[in-house]
């Protein structure tokens, strides 16, 4: 949809901070983070728990807004938008893939995949056609009338990926997508990501697993709310501190 529009990076994050107030205390989850991601890139954001990567994921996913700094997504400044404006951005620009899948348990796979289109006001007929096509892409067309509890973990995550793809967003944002899967199934999902990357999708993957980050062409390591490494996936994932030179983007 908007995949080919505009020049420059798809994501431009400039000096972003996010401060939480917990019981009168200030917690600085992000302390001035800057980077850019181009269209078609596959980037891992890696860090220990408490590193700020979840906060980063929420900000990138427009589920949260930064306390200061600027976040440009596909040419739009989304850092000061209202809740409802952000809802529209999430619907149009972002395809979410969550660790716990976040499928609606009472709805069929097909209805789950249709959901983003429901909130875009697409007609029922077109919704059905597009959701079916998305399920075919993840090889689940034959299971589309099943409910999540009738599907295996890997199948559920593939339904979730179909749901992320169906609205043709400018980026896919995955949060620990293999965290709840055994290693064989996890591998299946990573291969699917590789295919999507080859097909030209922009992928951002948030994880604490170095092995997963190492599969990505590029990785950004967060620690204590700051970028400590940004570069080739394997190098950053293995955690040698010498790669700090790329930090801070351009």
């Amino acid at each position: 949809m908007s995949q080919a529009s505009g020049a420059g990076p798809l994501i431009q994050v400039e000096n972003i901070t996010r401060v939480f107030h917990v019981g009168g205390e200030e917690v600085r989850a992000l302390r001035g983070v800057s980077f850019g991601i181009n269209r078609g890139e596959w980037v891992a954001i890696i860090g220990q728990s408490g590193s700020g990567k979840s906060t980063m994921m929420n900000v990138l996913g427009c589920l949260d807004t930064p306390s200061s700094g600027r976040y440009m997504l596909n040419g739009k400044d989304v850092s000061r938008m209202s809740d409802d404006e952000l809802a529209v951005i999430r619907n149009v620009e972002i395809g979410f893939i969550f660790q716990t899948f976040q499928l609606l348990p009472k709805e069929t796979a097909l209805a789950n995949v249709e959901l983003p289109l429901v909130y875009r006001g697409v007609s029922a007929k077109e919704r059905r056609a597009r959701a079916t096509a998305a399920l075919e892409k993840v090889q689940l067309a034959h299971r589309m009338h099943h409910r999540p509890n009738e599907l295996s973990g890997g199948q559920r995550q593939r339904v979730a990926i179909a749901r992320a793809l169906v609205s043709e967003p400018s980026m896919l944002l995955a949060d620990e997508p293999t965290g709840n899967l055994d290693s064989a199934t996890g591998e299946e999902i990573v291969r699917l990501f590789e295919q999507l990357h080859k097909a030209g999708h922009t992928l951002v993957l948030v994880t604490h697993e170095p092995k997963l980050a190492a599969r990505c062409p590029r990785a950004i390591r967060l620690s204590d709310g700051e970028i400590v490494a940004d570069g080739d996936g394997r190098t950053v994932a293995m955690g040698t501190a010498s790669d700090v030179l790329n930090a801070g983007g351009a």
Partner: protein
Amino acid sequence: MRAFLDNLRLALGTFLGNPLRSLLTLLGIVIGVATVITMMGLIEGLRVKVNNDLGRMGAHTFQVTKWPAGGFGRINWAKFAKRKDFEMPDSRAIEESCPSVGTVVPTDDEGGQKLATASSETRPSVRVFGTPANYPLVSGVSVQAGRYFNEVEALDGRYVVLLGTDVSDALFPGMNPVGHEVRIKGRPFRVIGLLQKRGSMLGMFSLDNQVMIPLSVFHQLYGKKRSLDISVQAKSPELFSKAQDEVASLMRRRRDVPANMPNDFELHTNESVTASFNQLSQVITIAGVGVCLLSLVVGGIGILNIMLVSVMERTREIGVRKALGARKRRILGQFATEAVLLSLMGGALGLGLGFGLVFLGNWMMGFPMQVPPWAVGLALFMSCGVGLLFGIYPAARAAKLDPVEAMRAD
């Protein structure tokens, strides 16, 4: 529109997913609506019946009597007993000196009478009416078989009688009574007619448990020291109120009522009798609506409760929907639609139950119940309103949820 249909589908799904819980929640609304339908049915039925029954007095006709008719509340009978009786000269005076008056019909009646034949007798509950020959002109009475007595029979004081259907059924079951003989107070009467069935007044006392005899004969049987009821028909509908004024001032003169005192007699029109009933039925209607509102509030609290539970249970779902791009208004709409649909279903069930009760009341107890269409509209409108009123708060809570927090809930 599409959003509305989607919301409707979702709401229906929730209802069907949890039918027992939904039904129990709705009980308050079901009972509230059923109550209002039944009460309105009863009141409207009575009102229609009263208007029909009393409307049988005849067109542009009013009655002059000593006693007030019906009326609700305490009646000071002693005060009315002191009033002067109406007698035949009063009736003749109206006929002679009121130019707007057409027909004047004096009548008298006595309840608790027993009629007998050689082989059977009625219970002592029959009302005997003494009337002139022209009585059918001003009343709802008509003859089904035989004929009414004529001028000559009335003036001569012949012992002839017309039977109401209840009396005829008791004395001559399955037979035409015309030509047979019956006894009233031991005197033999020839049956010359059978009256048309009129049904019962307010479903309580029968209008067919009565007989008609000439007024002169009535006076022989029951004495003359009684007060007549004088039915007066105006010459035309336009002269109706003028005729009432003429009769009232004539009676005041004849009864020496001082100018500053109220009438010491009663003028009844269809309107004046029905008005007092309508007044009562209005009071009951308002009380009924009050009762209904109260139970709808109880029902509404049920809705409030179930919707709060529903929002809590589905926090995660709400989080997912918001993450995938549902705006606040959409979530609000989803849950508000659910609440309204829920209480509308309650309203519909209540309607069904109410109509069932009305049907039972009609069928088993013979109450003349009739549900006015506006009560159906009101009941549905109110249950809709209750759903909206009590559903909006839980829906607003759902809409305000933070998607990240909500998706973390279990």
